[in-house]
């Protein structure tokens, strides 16, 4: 609540009354120093009245008492311009015509800096016209700031000025012509730059069109514009902004005669850091070279940086330029051969081939041959012989000295119950306080969340000492915002004050609640009841191992302990626990079952662990049946998935993956029930999918910990979500959590996990693609990757136009860089991928063929008959055709 503004001086009274003329009359009665002395009053008036304009939720209007009227703002503006500093005047002026009149009458000192401040404090778009009017009126001098130049960039693009043509501007402000040239010197920001203006305004108002017109009308000479354009390109601004200048140069279409004086500047631009500038310079240099306007050797030297460019077309253009120069000046050939060497580091085998061909013709001296050595490591397998020959090897190598073998996978996936994966219970109060504090701030560490949750229950009721120790955290409770951490905060608050705060799930973009969060809220409510009589007992759902797993014998002992000490176990907690059992520990737990009573929980557990007892009924039934099946090694049948394409009015077809719900023969346990309970999207947006975990990473990870032995439900969500956002049209960072599950050494990558991996490898977002690449390498090395399932998914996605070959080629190549042993898996994927659509292969199939050839040659893998058949029917042209021929020339498997 702002303090009410009470006018205390005559100036304030007149301004608040909205009497512009009275304010001016009052100022007339003062001399210059008297007016300046009112600077503080003017600043205060501006501050409060401007705040009041935007105080939408403040009943006091920032103390002004009402939304300021135009009359009030005009009167305040007069005080600001005449008495205030330049900044106050710029913030407070109301009408530029008033400013002109006041400037002429009072010549306030603020005028000198006012235009610069006007461009600084408000949007350039709005204020540039007022600044121009002040300049045209001759009451201020032109600002020299970059902000003014940004305003000039918008001067002619504004719809408000359509009635006034450019000539009127030049006529009213003769200095504008020279000042305008500074648009070539200021890079611009965000949406204010020549590139941005031209991108978002009508063609008739674009700078490129206007400047060409100005040149035609003689306002600026073409020579001047060419010079300024080159100056801008030399500054190396970011690609988007630099690109405008190279495009403008093309539009200006200078003749050879016009370019000739700048020949060396064009050559210098070959070293630019900005790829479009290099492409542009290559084009011009080619023209200049054709016209014999360049010295051969310096030009060849200037091409040196281009041979290190990652842009294939630039390297190829530079090679062709090199050809012309050597043809014209054959004595340069030896030097040319050395200069083009860096292009051998290019990842494209085709570029490497072109370089090697030239080196063979142009010949390297001894030093040059020595300089070839560093490139040997990255040379494509197809060119190793040529490189070896050029290096002067006496015998031609038939391949790498020691090819890396595509290794067979390791013996078995990691054991979920390995001792290294054990989650130790919290030992003492000190650790509990520290861990709770940690989880408050780190919501995605599910293992620590579970430790802290269990620790709080075990240490309840809290002693006075514990309460004192938790006091700083108690103050933090209200600030914990992340859904998972919030539930720990709720439990702590309950333990400290007995207060059960209400809680609800967050909602996703379509308003749906996350079932995983609702489950956690319910669980914490349950634990609040449990602590009342728990007496330090461990909650049944507490994991003993990472990822949520519970060692079955330990679970049985917990339940027995509850029963022995008369603690009433919570059924909800029991259900969480039973779903987390590690199936492989079932056998070890059976001898312990004798310790249990004959109650329903004990019976359900006996059934779940495979004892020959009748299954429970009611809520316990689904969980017990599901775990019994898992303990017996029976997983539900794989869930079906299919591609669904939707064609839209814009002519584009969008494809996604839909996963069918679990089969009817699958027992509906509490976790599966969550998946089934998720509402279908109300509107049929092609990209909509409501998931159990929602849009919070912590909640997704919590969901993953609820049935760690079978993540099909989780992966179904992951597949649906990733397939709808493969091109990253929306930043959904939380979905990386699905892919990260594939990195765990005890998660089999088969069925839907393999489908998810196939999607991750084709993702546009580099972080997700990198996680997927790691998952491929790691799961293959650990023997948990179903290569056939992955390859089949990739083939399906390519056939259905969901994924792009180039992205697969990139991810698979990255996998080989990490671990050459993954070659067998990568090769298997490639074999399926090229067979996706032989008659109508997807775009960039050649990138897959190139990688395949690398593997075949580098790892001496023979082509399977089916792949040979697919290659023979593959309808590719150009580079792909040549690669296909080379592949078919390789020996069979």
């Amino acid at each position, binding site marked *: 609540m702002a303090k009410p503004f009470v006018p205390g001086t005559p100036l304030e009274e007149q301004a608040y009354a909205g009497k512009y003329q009275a304010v001016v009359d009052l100022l007339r009665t003062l001399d210059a120093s008297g007016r300046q002395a009112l600077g503080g009053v003017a600043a205060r008036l501006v501050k409060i009245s401007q705040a009041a304009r935007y105080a939408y939720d403040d009943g006091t209007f920032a103390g002004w008492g009402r939304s300021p009227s135009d009359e009030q703002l005009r009167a305040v503006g007069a005080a600001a311009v005449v008495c205030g500093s330049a900044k106050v005047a710029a913030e407070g002026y109301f009408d530029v015509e008033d400013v002109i009149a006041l400037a002429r009458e009072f010549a306030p000192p603020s005028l000198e800096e006012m235009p610069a401040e006007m461009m600084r404090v408000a949007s350039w778009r709005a204020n540039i016209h007022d600044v121009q009017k002040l300049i045209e009126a001759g009451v201020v001098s032109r600002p020299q700031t970059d902000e003014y130049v940004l305003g000039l960039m918008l001067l002619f693009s504004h719809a408000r000025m359509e009635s006034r043509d450019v000539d009127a501007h030049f006529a009213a402000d003769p200095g504008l012509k020279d000042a305008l040239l500074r648009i070539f010197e200021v890079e611009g920001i965000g949406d204010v730059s020549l590139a941005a203006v031209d991108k978002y305004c009508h063609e008739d108002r674009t700078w490129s069109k206007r400047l060409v017109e100005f040149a035609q009308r003689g306002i600026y000479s073409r020579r001047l514009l060419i010079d300024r354009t080159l100056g801008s390109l030399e500054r190396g601004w970011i690609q988007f902004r630099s690109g405008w200048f190279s495009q403008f140069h093309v539009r200006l279409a200078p003749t050879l005669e016009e370019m000739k004086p700048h020949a060396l500047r064009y050559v210098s631009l070959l070293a630019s850091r900005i790829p479009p500038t290099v492409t542009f310079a290559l084009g011009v240099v080619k023209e200049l070279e054709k016209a014999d306007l360049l010295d051969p050797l310096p030009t060849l030297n200037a091409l040196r940086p281009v041979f290190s460019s990652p842009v294939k077309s630039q390297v190829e253009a530079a090679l062709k330029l090199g050809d012309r120069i050597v043809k014209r000046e054959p004595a340069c050939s030896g030097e040319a051969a050395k200069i083009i060497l860096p292009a051998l580091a290019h990842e494209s085998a085709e570029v490497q081939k072109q370089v090697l061909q030239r080196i063979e013709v142009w010949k390297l001296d001894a030093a040059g041959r020595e300089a070839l050595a560093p490139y040997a490591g990255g040379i494509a397998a197809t060119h190793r012989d040529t490189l070896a020959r050029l290096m002067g090897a006496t015998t031609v190598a038939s391949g790498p000295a020691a090819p890396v073998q595509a290794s067979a996978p390791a013996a078995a996936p990691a054991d979920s119950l390995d001792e290294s994966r054990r989650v130790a219970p919290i030992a003492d109060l000190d650790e509990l306080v520290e861990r709770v504090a940690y989880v408050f701030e780190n919501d995605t560490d599910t293992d620590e969340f579970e430790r802290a949750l269990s620790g709080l229950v075990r240490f309840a009721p809290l002693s006075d000492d514990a309460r004192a120790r938790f006091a*700083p955290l108690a103050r933090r409770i209200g600030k914990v915002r992340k859904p998972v951490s919030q539930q720990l905060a709720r439990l702590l608050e309950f333990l400290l004050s007995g207060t059960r705060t209400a809680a609800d799930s967050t909602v996703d973009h379509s308003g749906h609640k996350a079932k995983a969060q609702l489950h956690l809220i319910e669980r914490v409510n349950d634990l609040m009841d449990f602590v009342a009589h728990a007496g330090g007992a461990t909650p049944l759902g507490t994991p003993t191992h990472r990822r949520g797993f519970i060692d079955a014998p330990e679970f049985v002992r917990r339940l027995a302990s509850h029963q022995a000490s008369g603690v009433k176990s919570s059924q909800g907690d029991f259900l969480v626990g039973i779903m987390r059992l590690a199936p492989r520990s079932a056998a070890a737990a059976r001898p312990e079952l004798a310790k249990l009573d004959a109650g329903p929980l004990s019976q359900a557990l006996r059934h779940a662990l495979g004892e020959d007892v009748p299954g429970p009924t009611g809520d316990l039934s689904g969980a017990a049946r599901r775990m019994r099946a898992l303990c017996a090694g029976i997983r539900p049948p794989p869930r079906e998935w299919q591609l669904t394409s939707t064609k839209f009015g814009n002519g584009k077809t969008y494809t996604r993956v839909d996963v069918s719900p679990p089969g009817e023969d699958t027992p509906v346990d509490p976790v599966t029930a969550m998946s089934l309970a998720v509402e279908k999207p109300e509107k049929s947006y092609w990209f909509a999918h409501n998931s159990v975990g929602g849009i919070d990473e912590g909640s997704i990870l919590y969901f993953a910990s609820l049935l760690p032995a079978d993540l099909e439900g989780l992966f179904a969500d992951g597949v649906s979500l990733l397939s709808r956002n493969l091109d990253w049209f929306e930043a959904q960072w939380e979905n990386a959590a699905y892919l990260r599950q594939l990195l765990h050494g005890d998660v089999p990558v088969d069925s839907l996990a393999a489908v998810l991996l196939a999607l991750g490898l084709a993702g546009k977002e580099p972080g997700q693609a990198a996680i997927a690449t790691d998952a491929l390498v790691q799961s293959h090395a650990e023997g948990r990757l179903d290569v056939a399932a992955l390859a089949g998914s990739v083939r399906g996605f390519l056939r259905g136009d969901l994924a792009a070959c180039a992205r697969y080629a990139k991810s698979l190549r990255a996998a080989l860089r990490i671990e050459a042993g993954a070659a067998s898996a990568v090769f298997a994927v490639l074999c399926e991928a090229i067979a996706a659509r032989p008659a109508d292969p997807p775009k960039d199939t050649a990138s897959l063929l190139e990688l395949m050839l690398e593997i075949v040659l580098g790892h001496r893998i023979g082509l399977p008959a089916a792949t040979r058949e697919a290659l023979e029917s593959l309808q590719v042209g150009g580079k792909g055709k040549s690669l296909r021929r080379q592949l078919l020339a390789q020996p069979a498997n």
Partner: protein
Amino acid sequence: MQFAYRYAAPSSLTEAGPPKLALATAATDGAAYPYFFEGRLVRPRLVADLLVAVHTIVAARFFTPANSVAKAIALADPVVTSGGGLLRFEGFSSCCSAYVRADLLPQSYQGDIVGKGTTNVDFNEPMRAALARVRDDLGLAFSVGQQEFRLRSEAADVIERKVELPTRWIRGMLEVQSYQAGMERRFEMSAVEALRFFRSLPKASTSRTPLWISRGPAGLFTTTRPLDHGVRITDSSRLRVLHALLPLARSLSVYEDDAHQASAWVVDFGEARLTLALSAEVWRGFSGEGQALWALMQADDGEVGATLARVRAQLQWQAALDAPVLARELGTDAKVVEDVLRVLGASGLAGFDVFAGSYFHRVLPFDLSMAEDLHPRLVDARQLIGAGAVKVVRANPFEADVASGDSAHRVRDIDGELRCTCPWFAKHQGERGPCKHVLAAAVLRPESC
């Protein structure tokens, strides 16, 4: 804090006749315009590229916080240091997540180092454009400061540029030295290998997924899996400035601290080097790190405090401050001198050359009297100690309660590391330096612990 650069003339590259690059130096506190160097460059194109790299980082903003203007404002002009035959140009990005330094070694020039010292140097857009036209075959005369301005501290046509220099910028500039001092070399690779590796990096930002760089049989690669001996990096777009330099380089070395919080990339050209230090995340500049706090806390320590003034008296713009040599000269322990150098680094009185593995003398041309005040945690820790807020619960293993309002945080020694129960420590787990409670408690920890 408002900071004004005052130059007698803008830096310029004159091309009429033999080309000459004249870098203008700033006068500080009414002193004369420093004059450091006059001569010729051996590889003009290389030096031009290095200066462009410094300019690029200084003008860069790799992270723009939400609701702030997306304008990349070059907050501070680069700093030049002349001493020990080296000319060093240092700069810092506006977001404080990238630090750059170009070192010109004596082999890189023919001429005279005519002065020693540190000051700001003017880098302007026209000069940046002219640098693009520098060619080796035309040669390049080079000066840092000018003889004619040497005796002039005031000029009618002085160029003055005022900037609002946030304290985070200065804090980051100090902090980055402490980080570098704790780094070790992880990889060294040829320029060709480096070029190939850089091309394999994603073009789009990976700021949400940290990548770990490691070396395998096929060369360097990146992975999302944390590796003990790998180098952690987020948003590899910050490395782009090095791409254009690699074709001219001999090798690239990568350094990192043990906690994988910052990395330094040093491109070696033989006669020159470029160091690029990157913070753990783009949104997390060096300014928020607390690596310098331990050193600054030590400044009060008896032995370190007493030696500090004596070491300062030895500073003469040396290119390398060798702790054992200084210790011998001062008749004190090398370990104490190392601690003193850390304090000097954190105070802006020394930079760290990670390639050489040593500090060098330079005095940042800013008001350093408030260097300690720039660290709120340090100030708070001192207040806690002053208020007697630290109560030792147990000496071994060390435990202390640090009063905070009406409650207390517990600081405990766990496996040699002091951990606190405060939210700040809970969030960062010591990765961003100690919290104020740990800093305060550490003072009362017995030496033997």
